[in-house]
């Protein structure tokens, strides 16, 4: 029921429905082994989609509220089912500060929810049974700091390049990732503001 209400809220709230984000949210820089001798690039394509809403009443800052869903990636093409999925949802609140007509800086925070789930069951590896994940015992909730720049194309399209700092106060777990996004205002009342 709650999911239904949430869906209705999104679908029937014109302002929320009107603003679409597509982008890529890369893995932490130099942190993830991809090949035997190399790590995955921070600019690897990890597509996400989202909706955003810009609140323009705090001039010169514009608050940008955003909710994104990072699409699960096909990392291991040869892997046979049963599968395990890693889902990621991101709530963000960013301040946009215009440095001119089109260029703006981005500063804000996000909560990133990472949830790993599987189909369960057992699997034989080298003659021994191992267990596959089902529902997660824990979902990860990370607060991250966002820093970046954006470009405003005629108040309809926005391009953003952001860096994200994970666990800034933990010297071992601290990580930096990069995201790129295109944002599109294709419906809604633009008013006379920015």
């Amino acid at each position, binding site marked *: 029921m*709650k*999911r239904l*209400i*949430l869906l209705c*809220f999104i679908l029937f*709230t014109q*302002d929320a429905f009107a603003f679409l984000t597509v982008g890529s949210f890369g893995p*932490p820089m*130099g*942190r*993830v*082994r*991809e*090949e*035997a*001798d*190399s790590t*995955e690039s921070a600019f690897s394509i990890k*597509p996400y989609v989202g909706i955003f*809403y810009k*609140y*323009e*009443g705090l001039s010169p800052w514009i608050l940008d509220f955003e909710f994104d869903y990072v699409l*699960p990636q*096909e*990392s*291991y093409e040869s*892997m046979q089912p049963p*599968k*395990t*999925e*890693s889902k990621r949802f991101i*709530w963000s609140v960013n301040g946009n500060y215009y440095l001119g007509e089109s260029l703006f800086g981005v500063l804000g*925070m996000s*909560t*990133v*929810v*990472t949830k*790993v789930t599987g189909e369960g069951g057992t*699997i034989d*590896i080298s003659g021994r049974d*191992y*267990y*596959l*994940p089902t529902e*997660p*015992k*824990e*979902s*990860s*909730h*990370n*607060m991250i700091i966002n820093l970046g720049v954006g470009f405003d194309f005629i108040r309809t399209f926005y391009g953003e390049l952001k860096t994200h700092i*994970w666990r800034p106060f933990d010297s*071992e*777990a601290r*990580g930096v990732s990069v995201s790129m996004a295109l944002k599109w205002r294709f419906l809604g*009342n633009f*008013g*006379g503001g920015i």
Partner: protein
Amino acid sequence: MRTLSTILFLTLAFEASAFTLLSANPPVYKNSNEIIIDVTSDGCSSAGISAERLLELVMKGAEEYWNSVETANIEFKEGSVTAISGAGKDQGALLSDAQSLGDHHVLVGCTSNVPANAAAIGGSGQTSSGVTNGAVAIKDVAVYFRDDDIPSAILAHELGHVLGLGHSRLGLALMDSSGGAIGLNKLTQDDRDGATYLYGYEASPGGCFKSLGTIDDISKGGGGSKNFWLSLMLGLLLIVLGKKGTTLASRF
């Protein structure tokens, strides 16, 4: 629109991970940000490795691999050289010894009593009162201590078992049965997913976002209802404020 749908369909492929668990409900460390690693008193005498050096190597593996997963609440911490001897003991005996050190202690020792087809063996146990301990037994053979990377990777693999992970189906993964590719001292995304699955960082949201709730809270059904309604109300408030803001702005 059709093009957009096609692009979305093509990119919407599922990530197939390969990590496994040692059991359906492996014993997990409740305070996983405080797992203490201790070593046996005799180090690896046949391999010429002192107890202090063994502790350095196991901490290198713990820190470079498991402590660096930003989505997992895992922090192995350096303990001490204990008075416990590991000579001739198997992993089970070391696990019994680890219990005498207290909750959340993992005892690492060199021994000749490791199965012939393995370099090391690791795992954890939990008492009925919830005390969780782990033990790692590494074979006391010089070939496993040729340089820093090999023993730290072997020990990090065994610490993965201590955390509750089984062998992976992904050849590059640290948790692959052969220990994956050694040299980079990095986990694959598959290893990281396994760590996140068992020890997700901050199980409940905190900070200023707490009142916003999360998808996880909503999906749990029973919990998080307060956060859910707060989220909706805050969303509606922002939209009303936003409309008011743009209307006011249009006057100027």
